[in-house]
C-alpha cells in the first residue's frame, strides 16, 4: 500500500468530520429572527465605524517575506542533516559556507531595521 494513501484518507476523514461538526449548530440550534443590530460585528457596543478590512502595517508583510526566506533555509538544512553521516566533514564545511552567506543577509535585515517593532 502506498504510504501516502493514508494521508489522503485522513484528509477526507478530517474534512468530513470538520464540516459535520461546524454545520451541527446550524441544524440543531434555534433559528432566531435576524435583525441588523444582532448580526452587527462586535465593536464594544457602539455602532461600527468604517470598514474592518482596513490598511494594516507593512511589517506583517515583511515578516511573511522574511519567513519564506529563512524557512527555505531550514528545509535545506534538513536535507544536509539527514545525510550528515554520509557527507562527512565536506558537508559540514559546505553548510558553514552556506550559513555564513545567510548570516550576512540576516545581519543586513537586522541593520535595516526590518525586525524592529515599536
Amino acid at each position, binding site marked *: 500500500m502506498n504510504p501516502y494513501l493514508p494521508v489522503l484518507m485522513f484528509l477526507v476523514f478530517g474534512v468530513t468530520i470538520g464540516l459535520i461538526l461546524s454545520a451541527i449548530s446550524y441544524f440543531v440550534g434555534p433559528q432566531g429572527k435576524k435583525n441588523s443590530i444582532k448580526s452587527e*460585528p462586535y465593536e464594544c457596543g457602539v455602532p461600527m465605524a468604517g470598514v474592518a478590512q482596513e490598511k494594516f502595517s507593512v511589517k*506583517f508583510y515583511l515578516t511573511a517575506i522574511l519567513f519564506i526566506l529563512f524557512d527555505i533555509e531550514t528545509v535545506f538544512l534538513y536535507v544536509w542533516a539527514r545525510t550528515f553521516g554520509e557527507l562527512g566533514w565536506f558537508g559540514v564545511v559546505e553548510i558553514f559556507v552556506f550559513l555564513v552567506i545567510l548570516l550576512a543577509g540576516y545581519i543586513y535585515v537586522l541593520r535595516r531595521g526590518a525586525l524592529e517593532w515599536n
Partner: protein
Amino acid sequence: MLETVLGFFRENDFWLEFLITVIKIIVVFGICAQIPPFMVWFERRAPAFMQRRKGPNRVGLFGFRLFGLIQPLADTIKLIFKEEVVPTGAHKFFYHIAPVFSLFTSLMVAAAIPFGPPLVILGRTITLSVVNLDVGFLFIFALSSLGVYGITLAGYSSNNKYSLMGALRAAAQMISYEIPLGLSLIPIVIIFGTLDLNSIVVAQANVWDWGIFRAPISFFLFVIAMFAETNRAPFDLAESEAELVAGFHTEYNSFKFSLFYFGEYVSMFVLSCLASICFFGGWQTGFISQNDLTSLLFGIQPLAVLVGVLMTFLKASFFMWLFVWVRWTLPRFRYDQLMNLGWKFMMPIGLFNIVLTAVIAGAIAFK
C-alpha cells in the same frame, strides 16, 4: 458469512491494509477528541487550586460529581444547541471554512505521531501511527504550518477589526516561531540520522541516549517555540483580551467557536507528543528494552505495546501540564518583545546550536 468476509481479507491484502488504516484513523480521532474536553476541565481546575479556589466541581452524572469532569460535556451540549449568528459583511465561504481548516490541519499532524511500538498480531506488524512516512518530520512541519490559514481566514472574513488584528498578530507570530521550531530539531536529525519518527524513538532505548541529554539547547528552543506556535501564554498575543476582545474568533459562536479550541488543544497535544518523541524517548521506558519488556510481561507483545502507549501519554501529559502551569505563572509578553525573542534571540541561538552539534557530532563520528 463471517468466513466469507475473513477469506476476502485474507486474499486481498490491500483491503486488509485499508481496513486497518480506517480503524487507526478512528482510534486517533477518538484520542484527539478526548483531549480538548479534558484540557478545558483541567485548565479551569488547575488554576483554581493555584489560586485557592474550587473551580468547576458541580456538574456530575447520576449524582456522582466526578470532580466536575462532566462540565466540558455540558458545555459542549450547550454550545451545540446555540443559535448561529453570522455577522453582516462577513465573507460567508471563508467564515464557514476557517474552523474546519483549523480542525483538520491539527488532526492531520496527529496522524504522523507514532503512539507506540509496532504491534504484532497474527504475524502482521501494525505501526501505531496512521501515516507511516520516512519523512515524518517534514510532514509534521508542512501540516502544522497550514494551521495558520485557519486563523488568518477566520480573522479576515469576520468583518471585525479586532478579529483582523488578532489574526495578523497570530499569523506573524506563528510563522516567526516556525523558524526556531524547525532549527531546534535539526540537531536531533543530525544525531539520529533519520527523519523517521519511529526510528528516532527506537534509537533512544537508554535514558542517556534521550534527546534532552544529547541536545539540551534544542530542547529549550523547542519548548519556547512550542508555546508560541500554539498561541499559548505567555505568547497568547492573538487573544489578549484586554486589547482585542477575543482575537481572531471574536465573531464566532455556537459549535464553530469550540472548533478553534479543539484545533488549539489538539495541536498542543501533538507538539507535546513530538517533544516527548524527540527529547524523552517517546514510547521507550528508558531503562528496559522493548524485547526485555515483552519477555517480562509473559511474552505477550500487545501488553508491552500498551506500556509503550502509556509512556507516550505520560510524557505528553507532562508537557500538557507545563502548558497550563506556565499560563498561570508568567505574564503575557508585549508584541515587540515577542518578535525580538523569536528573530533576534532564538534564531541566532538555533543556528549556533546547529554549528555546535555538527562540530561535536562530526568530531565523534568522523575522527
